[in-house]
């Protein structure tokens, strides 16, 4: 049975003018500008008969979230994105960035930059922390907008599906670090490099500047984080601060050929780290004001 039939009109009829009835639809109408709606419609992602893909992404059901983030992107974090032309227009890619700011604001803003790219809009996927699926509402919301837990199998599948995937190899070491350690890259996991080599996916290094200042953490209150089963519990602001965020997308890096040892892989990871460090340094030197 087709979508049209489910919505209650015959397949031959022209679709009736959409009348927002539910609160969600009214909000969508208010928050999602037409050009963004059109950009979403053009994405044409592979999905099942209900607009969902196997990981739970639904463009249709993400509209409201995307509209909301767009507002924050433009007016609150006043994001500037550089080097978007470096993101491959199509095909698999790993978007590797420094992680910061306690909440995954960096991933969200990077995704929005890619979605509204003047060169080739793409809806990237993001690999998220393993505790998210256990959190009511949040886990489902993240799945719906395209994030999935950072399992190498998920990543492999998605690269084979020619997706662009945002990965933070620092994981919680990066997002949960204290303000005094800002813009210092923490240890990178090497999983992304193995995946890039195995699937011959280009790596786009990204330097994120500004997210460190959105939620500066003075301390990690370990007893609370242990109690709640969270990776960290920062002593920080109640809401993210309106820091200006700049994103620097670097030139794609290809890592072809065999490696003979894990040390070779780590050396390649270091090349990516160096590229990200360079992008962060550029961002910090070009920054005129934090807020």
């Amino acid at each position: 049975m087709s979508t049209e039939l489910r919505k209650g009109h015959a397949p031959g009829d022209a679709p009736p003018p959409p009348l927002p009835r539910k609160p969600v639809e009214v909000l969508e109408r208010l928050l999602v500008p037409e050009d963004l709606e059109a950009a979403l419609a053009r994405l044409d992602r592979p999905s099942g008969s209900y607009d969902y893909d196997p990981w739970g992404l639904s463009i249709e059901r993400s509209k409201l979230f995307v509209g909301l983030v767009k507002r924050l992107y433009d007016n609150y974090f006043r994001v500037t994105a550089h080097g978007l032309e470096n993101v491959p227009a199509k095909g698999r890619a790993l978007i590797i960035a420094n992680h910061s700011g306690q909440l995954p604001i960096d991933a969200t803003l990077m995704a929005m930059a890619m979605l509204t790219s003047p060169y080739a809009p793409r809806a990237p996927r993001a690999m998220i922390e393993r505790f998210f699926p256990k959190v009511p509402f949040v886990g489902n919301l993240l799945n719906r907008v395209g994030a999935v837990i950072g399992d190498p199998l998920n990543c492999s599948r998605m690269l084979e599906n020619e997706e662009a995937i945002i990965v933070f190899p620092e994981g919680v070491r990066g997002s949960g670090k204290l303000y005094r350690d800002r813009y210092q890259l923490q240890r990178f996991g090497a999983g992304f490099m193995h995946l890039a080599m195995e699937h011959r996916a280009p790596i786009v290094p990204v330097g994120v500047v500004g997210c460190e200042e959105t939620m500066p953490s003075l301390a990690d209150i370990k007893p609370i984080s242990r109690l709640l089963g969270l990776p960290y519990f920062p002593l920080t602001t109640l809401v993210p601060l309106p820091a200006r965020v700049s994103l620097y997308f670097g030139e794609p890096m290809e890592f072809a050929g065999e490696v003979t040892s894990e040390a070779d892989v780590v050396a390649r990871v270091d090349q990516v780290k160096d590229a990200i460090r360079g992008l962060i340094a550029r961002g910090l030197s070009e920054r005129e004001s934090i807020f």
Partner: protein
Amino acid sequence: MSQEQDASVASGSSSARRPTVLVTGAAGTLARQVIRGLKADHEVVAVDFRYAARLGPRVPSYKVDVTKRGFEDVFRKHDIDGIVHIGRIGEDSSRESRYNANVLGSRRMFDLALNYGVRKVVVLSTFYVYGADAYNPALLDEASPLKASNLTMDLVDSVELENLANIYLWRYPELDMTILRPCHIAGPGVRNTMSLLLSQPMAPFLVGFSPMMQFLHVDDMARAVEMAFRHRGRGIYNVAPQDWLPYQDVLRECGCLGLPVPSLPPNVPATLSRLMRWKAFPSFLVDYFKYPVVIDGALFRKTFGFEPEHSMAAVFEHYRHKKKR
């Protein structure tokens, strides 16, 4: 066994030798469909532990417990060439009796199959064996670990049945054994827990959780079983459509009113299910309403050329329509 034989049934032997297939769980809807398909060019012998299903004059049908000695009489009486093992004891029985029937009973059947020269065995397993784990990646393939027994004792029999079938699969290459792991089977006549749930006007869901689910129409599953039986293809296969819908959307599509069940602390839903004795929402399956178990049916599609004919929307339409009556 003989005293339990359905009196209405004629003898299974015929002059022109057609291959004979033994179908277990014959009283169930899926098995009936499979029998209907195989009857055209096979002699079918039907068994079920519940009652001797009436399947027409040409299908000998027995009420027999696979764990009892009398079960061998079926093999003595009929020259069985293949087995379609659908019958498994479900949630109603105790853990022990399920283990006896589903694991020990199946082992007995596989041994009888070897002793009586059976060449083809199809075993119906379930996607539940993968386990509802928070860290499940999507599109689990057949090589994914079977975590169910680690998560709940109540699915140990399902996992062990598979382990057992696997041992016979590699130890006896002469036995063309195919193990199928379908996603939720639903549609007219199906009486599994998910079907019971979707038939109700009100169905529980865990607040803040709506895992992706897959549904296969019972007609399509019957075709899949038939295909697996008719064609060679030793091994393990997931059977699922390339379609997915979150559980809460499934409820809406089926016309069910969602009954919110608190999801925190994590043991609340299972406790509630036990207290309320929710048959269609058993406590040991609660996590399947929390975390997704999305399987990849690509290998089966490719190997057997299987494509579902009914959409998931058609499956849901059945339950919506049923409520209107």
